[in-house]
């Protein structure tokens, strides 16, 4: 559980600190996986398979997430010629 | 049933107006005029049948609407509503006449709004279900907003939004209060209903009654308006087109006073009685403050607007004097103010149409070129300053007589307010009509159409000033009933 929390925090820090969008996506992966770890820990506590099932769901979902994310990042690079997350901030206010 | 018709006619005619405009641009005017006159005729018919003061509720209709909430389409007229309905349709017709040549753009949509705002006001005056009342109360804001925002003058956007915000905010407070009352009644009796007659006498704790009343008072005090909630009024009145100003001053403000009479006092007699000192103080403050403000204005319509603040102070004063004299005086003042101030706005509009300004410093000496218009201006200025023989005087003297019994100080201050009315009324006459015609205006005098409208209003004011008894007879049962509600409180 503690491991999960540390992982989650690391991911979060990465999300907020990194500018490169690919690293941001990776940070997201870490956070999601942290949640998955937490589920496994919780499932272990109750001796139920539910936690591991959830972990599988999370993996699948994270994969989908990243695939869409990478597609978008690709497009972004196409349009903006950068992977800086500051670049796509034309809309504000 | 006829009550539903009254409103349906207006809504229907309003909906037809823009369509008819495609066929003939002038058609909406006739449609609107016919609709208002038809309604006026119907109400006069009701008056002829049952306005002699023998029954309390002259007409009623009660249809279920949203039974899930205990909401009924419960409409009814007593003498008070009936008179205000007559005023509504009369001034409605006047407003149509006053806009006859003034409004030249989107005539159809204009009359739609005009008729719908009248429908909303009529709804307010006949609703006996609090939900229906609130529905109509809010509904009239939208067409009124458009009347100001589209056909108003230079600062119409500012004025219309301000008007809308003030009334809407206070209206929502009232909605919360209505619902609080609804649940309080439901919890106490097991009957969840918005029906006014059933909600009367809902047992409430002292605190609850006070706070719920405050919600109602907020809405009515803004509409009336009570100083210091009045600042939307001069802007709205001066920026609105003639019809808008006439309806605002003549009718919309009356809905606030009506609210006090119909809802605040009967529903919350104890709490209302407790705030009497505050109400009297604010009323006298309003009378004097309005008069002083009116004196300082340079914009003719703004001046007239502030006179409304002053006059409506008398209404509030009369309501919170808790005796029949003042109460009936307050109602009389409401009615007469509708005519006198409405007429002043018609005249101001006629002037603006002719010389394209409302600035008093741009006027002067108009008697020279438009004697009938100026004479009418003088007449209504005199009504405004409470000249005996005209309707306003009757109302004001009754209020003063009633208030004198309760609070000598308030009565004396209000009498000084009548004096102060002289200042602004005469100043207005001087600046606009008397003096040398320094700007060399050459303007046409009142047209027969305007003249007829004005003459009719003069006649009504004279009639109300010299023989108001039929009017008193009409609303006496309503007032007697109100007085009964009040008496138990005052006696204690």
């Amino acid at each position, binding site marked *: 559980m503690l491991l999960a929390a540390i992982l*989650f925090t690391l991911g979060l820090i990465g999300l907020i600190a990194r500018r490169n969008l690919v690293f941001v996506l990776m940070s997201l992966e870490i956070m999601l996986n942290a949640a998955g770890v937490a589920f496994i820990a919780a499932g272990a506590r109750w001796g139920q398979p539910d936690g591991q099932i959830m972990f599988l769901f999370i993996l699948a979902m994270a994969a989908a997430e990243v695939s869409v994310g990478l597609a978008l990042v690709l497009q972004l690079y196409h349009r903006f010629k950068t992977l800086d*997350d500051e670049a796509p901030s034309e809309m504000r206010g | 049933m006829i009550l539903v018709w009254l409103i349906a006619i207006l809504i229907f005619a309003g909906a037809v107006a823009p369509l008819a405009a495609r066929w003939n641009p002038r058609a909406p005017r006739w449609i609107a005029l016919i609709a208002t006159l038809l309604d006026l005729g119907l109400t006069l018919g009701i008056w002829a049948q049952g306005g002699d003061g023998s029954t309390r509720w002259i007409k009623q209709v009660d249809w279920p609407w949203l039974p899930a909430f205990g909401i009924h389409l419960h409409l009814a007229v007593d003498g008070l509503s009936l008179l205000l309905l007559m005023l509504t349709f009369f001034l409605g017709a006047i407003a149509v006449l006053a806009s006859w040549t003034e409004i030249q753009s989107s005539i159809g949509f204009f009359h739609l709004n005009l008729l719908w705002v009248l429908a909303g006001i009529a709804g307010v005056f006949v609703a006996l279900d609090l939900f229906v009342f609130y529905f109509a109360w809010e509904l009239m804001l939208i067409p009124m907003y458009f009347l100001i925002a589209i056909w108003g003058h230079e600062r119409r956007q500012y004025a219309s939004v301000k008007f809308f915000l003030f009334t809407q905010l206070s209206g929502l407070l009232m909605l919360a209060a209505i*619902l609080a009352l609804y649940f309080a009644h439901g919890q106490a009796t097991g009957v969840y209903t918005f029906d006014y007659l059933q909600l009367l006498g809902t047992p409430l704790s002292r605190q609850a009654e006070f706070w719920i009343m405050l919600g109602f008072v907020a809405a009515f005090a803004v509409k009336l308006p009570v100083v210091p909630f009045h600042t939307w009024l001069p802007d709205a009145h001066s920026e609105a087109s003639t019809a808008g100003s006439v309806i605002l001053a003549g009718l919309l403000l009356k809905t606030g006073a009506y609210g006090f009479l119909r809802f605040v006092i009967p529903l919350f007699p104890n709490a209302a009685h407790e705030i009497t000192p505050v109400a009297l103080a604010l009323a006298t403050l309003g009378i004097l403050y309005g008069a002083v403000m009116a004196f300082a204005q340079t914009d003719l319509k703004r001046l007239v607007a502030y006179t409304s603040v002053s006059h409506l102070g008398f209404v509030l004063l009369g309501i919170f004097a808790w005796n029949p004299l003042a109460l009936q005086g307050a109602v009389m003042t409401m009615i007469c103010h509708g005519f006198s101030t409405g007429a002043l706005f018609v005249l101001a509009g006629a002037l603006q149409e002719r010389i394209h300004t409302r600035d008093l410093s741009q006027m002067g000496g108009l008697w020279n070129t438009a004697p009938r218009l100026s004479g009418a201006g003088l007449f209504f200025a005199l009504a405004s300053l409470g000249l005996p023989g005209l309707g306003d005087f009757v109302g004001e003297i009754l209020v003063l007589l009633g208030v004198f019994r309760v609070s000598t100080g308030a009565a004396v201050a209000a009498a000084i307010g009548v004096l102060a009315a002289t200042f602004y009324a005469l100043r207005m006459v001087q600046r606009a009509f008397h003096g040398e015609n320094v700007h060399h205006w050459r303007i046409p005098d009142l047209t027969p159409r305007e003249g007829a409208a004005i003459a009719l209003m003069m006649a009504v004011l004279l009639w109300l000033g010299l023989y108001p008894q039929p009017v008193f007879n009409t609303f006496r049962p309503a007032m007697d009933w109100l007085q009964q509600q009040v008496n138990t409180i005052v006696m204690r």
Partner: protein
Amino acid sequence: MHRVEIAALLPITITTLTALAVMIGIAIKRSHTQAFIGTVVGLAIAFASVILAGGVPRQVTPLLMIDHYASIFMGLIIVSAAGSALLAYRYFELRDTQPEEFYLLLLLATVGAEILACSAHFASFFLGLEILSISLYAMIGYLKERRHPLEAAIKYLILAAASSAFLLFGMALVYADSGTMEFARITRAETDTWYPLMTTLGTTLIFTGVAFKLALVPFHLWTPDVYEGAPAPVTAFIATVSKAAVFAVLLRYYNSSAGEHAFFVILSVIAVASILVGNLLALRQTNVKRILAYSSISHLGYVLIALLAGRDTGNQAVVFYLIAYSMTILAAFATVTALSGAGRDADEIDDYGGLFWRRPLIGSIFTIALLSLAGMPATAGFIGKFYLIAAGAATEQWLLIFVLIVGSAIGLFYYLRIIEAMFSAAQPVAPVLRPISVAEGAVLVTLAVIVLWVGIYPQPILAVLARR
């Protein structure tokens, strides 16, 4: 599975099948019209099945609970999705991309939303949410040639994924404490360890995830950017389907487990902040889509009041308000969509200058929609607001009601600014207007009629809500 259970699942099944059918259809032959018609027909059948299946409450596996509310929410979701689809046709027709897959995504997102509406379990909650979200990323960024949709999609993706992570972590914490993932059975198992703290913490994290989706303060910052960047029909979809579905799950979750004092306070703070901040942010905004985004923040804040009020009145008020709000905001975005030319969306207030005089019908409908958002009588928004205040008054949430009133007054100001522009004599700077199609016209008129009808005679809906 019993037949009744299959019947109860029909809406979800039919929507999924429609998605499949559309996908196969696209594989066979690319045809915008075909995909569009397939979608609409499928959704229509799904809606019919909601009505048919909307009988007795039925638990289908521990995951899904198809009860009265779920049916109503599914109906609302399907109608809103269909509305978005109807708007999308012409919109994408004008923009020369391949629009067929859009309907696929839309249907998938709808499936996710339907699952959310029925979910009674963390797993279905999570799955539904993710199906919805991932489809949405793609929908938002569908016009990939343009910068703003792309920007919006990336922002939404990153933040939504992060919030999902919060949500999941929260779920894990709650699960760790209670040992169950069914809403109805979540309890605080032990009191002597630090596990109960985990439930508290977990629930807070779940709220974060939910509040992000609902765009509640302080998780609202993405809203205007995404609303502005996304294609107008997608924005409509986000504003209606996504909000309704997430609120459905929140309603169920809050009612079954989380109604504790601490969460009451937190949600109250969120509600107050959302109402005030949302309305204030819109105050002088000049972009119509952003205004609607900010207004959605405050509207969801209003709905929270009913949620907090609880009881039957509160729940009914939530559902009613969401229906009223969805129809209204759909009408608003329908107008925006219908007016958006091929170049860009009609999203500046100036684009609406004098609209009423040139296009009286659209102008009137947009006015009605805005007045409904402002809660004026004779529109659905009024009854909705009335219901909210009633719910609040029934449980004496006076402070929240007061905030609602203040918020409404602020809100009125910016709705009036748009109305003002429409009724002004001004001409738009760059004409983005285009003639509307029959379908758009039909959608607009239908929505306006619904908004007015619900505003004047809501009795049928009230009756449905009151049924248990």
